């Protein structure tokens, strides 16, 4: 077993807060991670998770993704880090490159 010293610290959401969702399908079952929902508050996250998993769950846990530390035994498949500075156009470049049909 590894040391779990590889942290995956890239963000999981940008428009609103992301919430990791865990469900238990029967009291004898383990709690299972079933993905995440985007929601501005815990209450809204609960509503959304309930509408997706309420049919089958006896327990539903939510954890803010930005408070969740994700560690892996081995370095993640995709490696770490986000896009470099010059990977996308700047706003100015984007605007100047946009075709508006004005020149021929």
């Amino acid at each position: 077993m590894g040391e779990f010293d590889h942290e995956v610290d890239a963000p999981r959401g940008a428009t609103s807060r992301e919430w990791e969702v865990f469900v238990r399908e029967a009291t004898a079952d383990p709690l299972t991670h079933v993905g995440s929902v985007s929601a501005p508050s815990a209450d809204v996250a609960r509503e959304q998770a309930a509408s997706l998993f309420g049919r089958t769950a006896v327990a539903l846990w939510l954890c803010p993704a930005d408070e969740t530390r994700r560690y892996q035994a081995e370095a993640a498949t995709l490696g770490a880090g986000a896009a470099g500075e010059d990977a996308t156009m700047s706003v100015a470049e984007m605007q100047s490159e946009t075709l508006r049909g004005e020149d021929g």
Partner: protein
Amino acid sequence: MISVSKLLCDLDAEGDGLRYDAAGESTKRQIRDEKQRRPVVVWNVTKQCNLYCDHCYAAADTEIADGELSTAEGKALLDDLADYGAPVVLFSGGEPLVRNDLEELIAYANDVGVRPVLSTNGTLITAERAESLKAAGLKYAGVSVDGLPERNDDFRGLEGAFEGAVRGIENCLDAGLKTGLRYTITERNAADLEGVVDLLTDVGVDRFCFYHLDYGGRGTEIVDADLTPADRRTAVKRVCDMTREYHDEGEEIETLLVGNYADAAYLVEYAREHVGEAQARRVYEYLRVNGGDPTGERVADVDYQGNVHLTQFWQGYSLGNVRDRPFGDIWEDESNPLLRALRNRDAHLSGKCADCRYAEVCRGASRLRALTVEDDLFAPDPQCYLEDSEIDGPTPFGAGDEPTSAD
């Protein structure tokens, strides 16, 4: 994706192998194979966009967002997709052309054997960019236009966007890229549909994809601007009529309907009325093998941060992240009860979908719309426009009948 031209006019089009098996060979085994098919993966390479469209499902922005997959991560993702056997990657956004490494990623997808196609607003496709996309191995560009100039520009938040998109389309065609139109039908632009097709046919476009509005991203804010069921039926009928008229005149345009599998049921009804019982039976068999709404099965989405979604429109829920686990492992993990239920949705559909005679070709259409409007994952799609008299009764043509090749 339902090819209206194929079904009604028997047009052979590139890419049909993904949607249908050969006519008249719909054995049970093929259906099973079909269901095990790997998904087409939409990859939103960026959240950034140069336009600001009302109905954007990705809620894109002009500023670069945190946590975009880097070039190296993107290539590793494409390796993942290739290992898993994903047949196609659809580069989308945001506006994918704002990424300066787009061509590098397209070339890489090509190298590892995942067919690269593109969804774009077209307004950044200069002649040089079209050449470099073609050189990178891009197989298809779908350019979004949502109405005649005035309406389109209003929708897209930029004056001149229509002309810009047409320039982009022309540049693609000049570079020898197969190029098609993406048109999202709403109440505001339904009337422009034929005008846009006429205009773009003249430019040289021969493939037209009509999208029904799904209720994700900014789309949820315009649920009210969506078509009523009666207007939707009229719009879909117009697509069918128009396709046949073009073909009758010898112009073999390809037309597709996307995002509402109630269209499958309607197409069978339409074929019955306009092209005869034998053709209707063939249409039904094709669509049955096609398997209905593909959410969580034959389409998948990976967003700019690596989150995996059930479709590109369903951004509010993620199955997991490709920075944590390979895509295939996330997609195969049926310890997730939602994924399990969606893949077995026939057992859960309620209301009129539970007894609908077309359930096999439609499968309840969009689960996301049902969830958004009814707050019930297995309620009927609020966009269903079929009449009760059409959906009541036994399965058309007898369930599981083996059609003969004469069909």
